[in-house]
């Protein structure tokens, strides 16, 4: 009897998962909240603050999407996922969108049946060591013990980097950033490797951040971006264009402070008018109303505001814009035209 009930439950679960494979937008609206797969705790990107409210760079994008779709930036349910469980959770329908420092790669985009809809942070893999270890280049790391989060692209890059440079290392696999941090601080590994943004964020939480140095080598390209399930292009479009709206808003000088004023009536810039819905019917084309982008920008600010507030140079994490500057400023951010 128990067995039958169990199998029945499995079947129902399977059917439910099958039903939710399409039309994520309807599920989100019916539920009244967005399920956002996020990091289980990476300062500046996604971590709960002292009041238990999730804050961070990736978190802001989740809130922007919720604001655009549901009209409420707080209607987000954050689901902390480890690097190992994140893609399975997304594919199984446990989250609507995955914004968790995930690198856009060919096989993830195709074979894993995910769709990466854009890049919200251009990153690269680096190494962090203690100052007193006396190393100035990653090529001097022969014989070191390296802490690494399993199930990541960094794991593969690491193997490639040490093999190509013909130096040896001992990997110490860790499941989460917190575990890696604890192992590294205890000296159980000489080196901690992950995306440079992650290293900076992790170092910012150290008691003596000055005793640790991030080595100059950047050993890989790590375009981090939001991912959705393959096969639901309507939902993918919403996530993609919410991100683009934040990027375009910075380019056109739309901020959380002036967005209401600009949206009150048509301005002289037709791009701004189309973005903010005072001209054209762009919102309806992705199944939303015309104020979708206004709500997103009003909720979290434009891309530059999100960056400066969470991980910018004024924050403890102190990341420079670098590759993540607008294309007009020599960076890679380039939102396609809103037309």
């Amino acid at each position, binding site marked *: 009897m128990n067995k039958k009930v169990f*199998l029945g439950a499995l079947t129902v679960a399977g059917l439910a998962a099958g039903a939710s494979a399409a039309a994520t937008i309807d599920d989100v609206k019916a539920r009244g909240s967005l399920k956002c797969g996020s990091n289980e705790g990476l300062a500046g990107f996604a971590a709960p603050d002292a009041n238990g409210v999730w804050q961070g760079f990736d978190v802001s994008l989740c809130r922007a999407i919720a604001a655009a779709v549901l009209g409420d930036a707080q209607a987000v349910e954050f689901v902390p996922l480890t690097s190992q469980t994140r893609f399975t959770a997304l594919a199984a329908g446990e989250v609507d969108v995955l914004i968790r420092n995930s690198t856009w790669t060919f096989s*993830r985009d195709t074979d894993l049946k995910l769709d990466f809809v854009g890049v919200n942070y251009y990153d690269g893999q680096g190494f962090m060591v203690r100052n007193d270890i006396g190393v100035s280049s990653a090529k001097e790391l022969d014989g070191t013990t390296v802490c690494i989060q399993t199930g990541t692209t960094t*794991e593969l890059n690491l193997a490639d980097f040490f093999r190509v440079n013909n130096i040896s290392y001992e990997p110490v696999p860790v499941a989460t950033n917190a575990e890696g941090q604890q192992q590294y601080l205890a000296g159980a590994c000489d080196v901690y490797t992950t995306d440079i943004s992650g290293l900076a964020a992790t170092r910012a939480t150290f008691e003596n951040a000055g005793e640790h140095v991030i080595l100059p080598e950047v050993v890989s390209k790590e375009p981090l971006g939001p991912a959705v399930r393959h096969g639901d292009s309507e939902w993918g479009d919403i996530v993609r264009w919410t991100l683009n709206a934040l990027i375009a808003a910075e380019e056109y000088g739309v901020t959380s402070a002036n967005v209401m004023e600009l949206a009150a009536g048509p301005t002289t810039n037709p791009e701004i008018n189309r973005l903010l819905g005072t001209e054209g019917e762009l919102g309806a084309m992705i199944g939303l109303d015309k104020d979708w982008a206004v709500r997103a920008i009003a909720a979290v600010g434009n891309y530059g505001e999100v960056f400066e507030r969470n991980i910018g140079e004024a924050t403890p994490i102190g990341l420079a814009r670098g590759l993540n500057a607008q294309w007009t400023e020599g960076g890679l951010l380039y939102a396609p035209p809103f037309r």
Partner: protein
Amino acid sequence: MAEATDPPRETFRLSQLLYDARYRSMTIQVVAAILIMLLLVELVDNTVTNLAALGKDIRFGFLWSTAGYDINQQLIPFTSQDTHARAALVGILNTLVVAALGCILATIIGVLAGVLRLSSNWIVAKIMTFYVEAMRNTPLLIWILIVFAVMTEATPQPREFREGGSASMILWDSVAISNRGVYIPRPIWAEGSGFVVAVFVLSVIGIFVLRHIARKRQQDTGQILPVFRLSLALFFVPTLLAYFLMGRPVTLETPELGGFNFAGGLQIRNSFIALWLALSLYTSAFIAEIVRSGILAISKGQTEAAFALGIQPNRTMQLIILPQALRVIIPPLISQYLNLTKNSSLAIAVGYMDVRSTLGGITINQTGRELEGMLLLGIFYLITSLIISAVMNLYNSSVKLKER
């Protein structure tokens, strides 16, 4: 002429399937079997349909593609250029090694704790009661994390072993306990060491033969051989003789601090130690209770009868109590071994690269083949458990009550 009347012939009616107690149970079973099978078919069909809806198929080709990741503890050579199948094999061996060593240590600790809990010494008995209850009533994962935290936080870093550092190696500078693991000397097998090993193996076989002869002799003539002392001599003397005769072919390579880490010697990683100790301690508490129940199951009259015949206490235990207690102990012990083996999949908590971490973790994550990976993982644990059961059942049938 006597007329034999046939008993009224029973005709089978369909309603009997439901109302006749003789057939009813069979009806219920058939219906239940059909329902279960239908559900299974539905489940498989549902899985395949949903996978197809996601655009995924079920293929095992990923096993032969390049793994691309490194594994720290490898019993067979492995590089990042090897296949996922080989990575799985490395993981399988790591699982088996921790399970095997765990079963051995758990049995030793468990038997000790179980016997000591029956001790007439009040303090010893209470300490063991506390140990058993503390271990049995807390989750295994907590013990794994506790041992791991102690190993990484309370032990010195390798650089502390440098000149002027606060830590030093123990046992004549041959063993280093650091927060990256315990480094022990590694034997180097030079020419002629094969002979020494062969002598050692032969003397171990000799010990078993000796025990057999001793038992037979005791049963036939009642004379008792000094088995323990003879075994001890057999264990050491021939091997040492061969070792010196061959010109000391086996040398030890001690770990030395070089660069960032210890080089040379054998590294026993913290993740392994944490998993091994925690699994052993946890399972030993259950084994202790099994052993205690086994001993208590033997009537006190047996001991008293043996004493009345003038048999010494240790021989009473060895010849009378234990052989009978084993009949009670072995069957539940099998399931403890199975538990320990399956519990070793908690390795991921401390980053021990068992098969759950390689095939069921990194490989699945890098290839996106969750269903296939988990299926293979399930089959592996199933086969391993069945083999352990089979071997232990063989042993059980050799000690169980012989009914003639």
